[in-house]
Each structure stands twice: as C-alpha cells, then as structure tokens.
C-alpha cells in the first residue's frame, strides 16, 4: 500500500487490528446478522403455514362429518348439528361481484384520470383523498352504511330501480334495508381506493414512449389511452381488479353490519344474505358445541384458501407489469 504513488486515504480504526482476525470477526458477525434476518423473514412463510394448519385442524371434525357436501348444502342448524355453507359461499361471491360491478368503472376512471387527464395541480390532492378513503376503518363504513347509505338506498335508489327493472328476479321482494344490495354497495365504496391505487401505479409503470408514440401517430388523447396505455397495462389492471375482489371476499365488519345475516340463497338484491366472514364474526364466540365451532373453522378455511388463491393470481398479474415492486402496498 505504502509503495503507491498517490496518498492513501486515512484508514478506518478497525483495520489497525491484525488483518486476518478482523476479517474473520466481521465474517462471523455478518453471518449471524444474515441468519437473524433470515429467521425473521422465514416467519412469513411460517405464518401462512400456521394459519393453514390451525384452520385445517380446527375444521377436521366438520370435514370428517360432512365431507364435500358442506360446500353445497344449505342447512345451518346448530340445534340438529347439521351444517352446510352454501348460502354463505353464495352470499360472499354475490356481494363481491356486485361490488366489483360498481367499483371497477369508478376505480379505473380515477386511475386513468390521475395518470392521463388530470392537471398537475390536482393530482396530489385527489390521490391523497383516495388514499384517505382506503384509511377509513371498516366499522366506520358500516356505521355510515346503517345510518346514511340504507336510508338513501330506500328513498332514492330502490324505488326508481324497481320502477325500471322491477320485473327481473334481481329486484323481487320488499327492501327492508339490510340486504345484498346494501352490502354490495358498501363493499364497492370500500374497494374503489384499493383498485384505484394499484391501477394508478400500474399505469404509472407504462412507459411514456407508449403514449407519445400513439399521440405522434395522430391519436386523440382518449385513443392514446385506449389503444396504447390500457393494453400495455392490461395484465396489471386485471390484477388490480382481482386484488379488489380478494379484499371484498374477506371484508368483514361493514358487510356484517349491512348484509342482513340470513342463511338463505336468493337472487334478489333486496333480500338479506350472509357471507363467510360475517358468519364467523357473528357466530364464532357463540359456537358452544365442538362441531359448530369446527364448521366455522371450515368456513374460515374455505375463505382463507379462496382469498389466498385470488390474491396470488392478482400478484402474479401485477408483477408482470410492475416487476417486483410493492405496488399499492402503501394503500393496502
């Protein structure tokens, strides 16, 4: 070192110790550091296994007793100890699909507006407001739903809907308030910010050259969005929507407060329904017999496997566009 013609920088104090020993020491402490961090990181795969294990063991008695019929029978009778989850599975899927139907156009519009059309000064405030929407606790949505949304639906939405589409099977019966419709609408409001936040980051990941190329070919601004931006981000946008679906499937409090909690399968949006999450929320602490509890564990297992699958599909699609980024993790 000293034979070098240029002046060497001042040495850090650590290197004044005998060199091989110092290197050895850092080597070992580095290895310890790495294994400690790895241990914590392994906690996440472990966590998913623990959740699955807990739900599966808890569900075993019900799995043995009812087998696959649990999925398509509709009796839920704690007295006779017969359980079938079909109404909850139906209600979960129906309310979530209704929510998607309402939320997707709104959320994609927000994303497109923020990335393509918005004047610069409006971008931050609108993005901030949408993020706030994601921060509102579920139980607050539920409260708002009970006291504001349901009276609003009863007064201003259901009568005109019935007047126009009252002949369809979807709008049969009397609207008492707590219903599939109320649950679906509150879910829609709740998942708009999630879908919007993720879609926005997907659209931000679309290279500007895509837009510019379309505009340079004489496309109007909308044509550039439709023919260049949206197709480029398609996988990610679908991923964002599926992610919203995952949220809706597992959402508990607001839905429990609004959907009516009745073990029934009906296509009418005006009738009460039930979801898997709501059933667990309502009945878990009241489940007195082992089999009752086990049936609720099985409902939890179905819900968990369903949401994990849906989320995994969503993530794969989003990663294809925005590779490896924690897209939307701030909002989620």
């Amino acid at each position, binding site marked *: 070192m000293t034979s070098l013609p240029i002046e060497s920088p001042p*040495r*850090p104090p*650590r290197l004044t110790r005998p060199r091989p020993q110092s290197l050895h020491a*850092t080597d070992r402490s*580095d290895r*310890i550091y*790495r294994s400690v*961090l*790895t241990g*914590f*990181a392994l*906690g*996440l*795969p472990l*966590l*998913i296994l*623990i*959740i699955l294990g807990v*739900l599966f063991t808890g569900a075993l008695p019900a799995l043995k007793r009812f087998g696959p019929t649990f999925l398509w029978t509709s009796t839920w009778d704690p007295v006779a100890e017969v359980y079938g989850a079909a109404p909850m599975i139906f209600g979960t899927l129906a309310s979530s699909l209704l929510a998607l139907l309402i939320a997707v156009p*709104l959320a994609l*519009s*927000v994303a*497109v*507006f*923020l990335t393509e059309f918005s004047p610069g000064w409006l971008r931050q405030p*609108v993005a901030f*407001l*949408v993020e706030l929407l994601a*921060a*509102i*606790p*579920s*139980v*607050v949505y*539920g*409260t*708002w739903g*009970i006291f*504001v949304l349901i009276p609003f639906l009863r007064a201003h939405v259901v009568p005109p809907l019935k007047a126009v589409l009252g002949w369809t099977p979807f709008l049969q019966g009397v609207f008492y308030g707590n219903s599939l419709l109320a649950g679906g609408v509150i879910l829609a*409001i709740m998942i*708009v910010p999630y879908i919007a936040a993720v879609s926005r980051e997907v659209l931000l990941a679309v290279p500007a050259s895509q837009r510019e190329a379309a505009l340079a070919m004489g496309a*109007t601004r*909308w044509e550039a969005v439709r023919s260049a931006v949206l197709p480029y981000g398609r996988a990610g946008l679908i991923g964002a929507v599926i*992610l919203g679906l995952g949220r809706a*499937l*597992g959402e*508990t409090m607001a839905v429990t*407060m609004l959907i009516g909690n009745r073990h029934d399968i009906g296509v009418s949006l005006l009738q009460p329904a039930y979801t898997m999450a709501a059933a*667990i*929320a309502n009945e*878990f*602490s009241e489940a007195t017999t082992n089999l009752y509890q086990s049936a609720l564990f099985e409902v939890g297992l179905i*819900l*968990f496997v369903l949401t994990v699958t849906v*989320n*995994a599909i969503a993530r794969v699609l989003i990663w294809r566009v925005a590779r490896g980024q*924690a897209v939307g*993790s*701030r909002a*989620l």
Partner: protein
Amino acid sequence: MSGRALRRHLASRAMTAVVVVLSFTAVLALLLILGDLVLKGASSIDWAFFTKSPVPAGQSGGGVANAIVGTGIIVGLAALIGVPIGVAAGLYLAEYGSGRLGFVVRFIADVLNGTPSIVVGIVAWTFIVRPTHGYSALAGSVALAILMIPMLARTTEEMVRLVPHSLREAALALGYPRWRTSLKIVARTALGGIVTGCLVGIARIAGETAPLLFTALGNLNFSVDITQPMQSLSLQIYVYATGPFEEWHRLAWASALVLMGLVLIISITARWVTRQRYGRIR
C-alpha cells in the same frame, strides 16, 4: 376539420368527461362520509366523552374513555410485537432478498397482505384464548401484530431500497462490516421511510374490528389488564351502531369520528415524516 376527425375529437372529449365525472363520484363518496362523520359525531363530543366510561344502556351520558385507552394499549402492544419482526423481514428482503427465498417471502408477504383479518382472529383465538380459557387484550394484540407484519416487511423493503447504492459502497469500502453498514448506514438513512411504514401500519390496525371480536372481546368497564377482555374504539362502535338505542347511535357516531380522527392524524403524520425526509419524491 373533416367529419371523421371531428368525430374522433368529440369521442375523446366525451370519454374524458366520463372519466372525470366517474372519478369525482368516487372522491365525492369520501367527502360525504367524512362530512357525515363530522356532522353527526361532533355534537356529541365533549369532555365527559373522553373522560368517562360507558353508563348502562338506556341512561344518557357517559363516554368512551375505556375504549380510547383500550385501543391505545392493544394497538401499542401489537406494534411492539409486530414492528421488530416486520422491519427485520423487510431488511432481509432489501439486503439479501434477490434469491429464491427472497422471491418466496416477498410473494407471501403480498398475498398475506390481503388475508381476511377475521381469519387471523381465529388463529389468535386458537393460540391464546383457547389455552388460557379466557378472552384477553393480549390475544387481540397478537392478531393485530400478525396483520401488521407482511405490510411492514414490504414498506420497509421499499424504503431501504431507496437508499443510494453509493452510500452502502462507501461504508463497505471503508472496511465497515456488512451488518454495521446495513444497520448504521442503510437502515438509519431509511429511518424516516421505515417510521412512515410503521405509522401507516399502525393506522390500519387501529381501526380493525373483526380480529378483536373473539380475542379482546370488549369490556364495558375501564380495564388496563392485558390478560383480561378490553374495550377498543372499533368494538365499541360496532356494538353501539348495531344496538337498538338512540343514545347508542349518537355515541357510535361520536366514537367513529374519534377513531377516524385518530387514524387520519397518524396517516397524515406519516406523510409528513416522509416529506421531511424525501422532499417531493412521492
């Protein structure tokens, strides 16, 4: 302008208008909810609301002091458990996460981020409530901590990755061991971002209700014993909003406003911390 060009131009304008209208509908929903919270909640908030515990059903007066303190304890304990694990997992992802294990952990964190919180409640119930034969605030905290970990892992990773490589290289070139570089240089530089991530995580779990239903359970009396059932604001709102009494509905709105205020304050503080550290990056 030819007819065709005009048509395309008008179509573009029309679609822009549709997008703008739909966007503002979505934002309007938020303004409506916040507005209703303030309108219906603010009038019920007074000094007694913050200092008294609930009175028996049917009587008027009383407050939610027990729920506010309970939320603080449950969420604080959850953060104590969840933050070290989440941040350490995030550091792993940022420092060593380029391999296969990193990919798996990252993917699982993202997937767990969307886990229904009620399912996590069942897990906490199985491990804590069932063996101890009693609902407890601790079980609630564990459930909330589990919800926090995957989120924190991902935000921490993102924030640590923002630290310029030159900084790390400089430290390593000076003979700093890798672990000290990671903790003293990289993590410290990213500290603002990590704190932001933690605050956002805390804001999210502060409003959680479902995982507390059969863990912390709720408690009408003032309690600070974490081995006993404890009230939280979110549980209190659920009970009050779904109850039959006018008085309860009033208190539900007021509690909802307080909870919302709490969440907003934490979220806005988080943004402010980020802005202090990173200027206008985001």
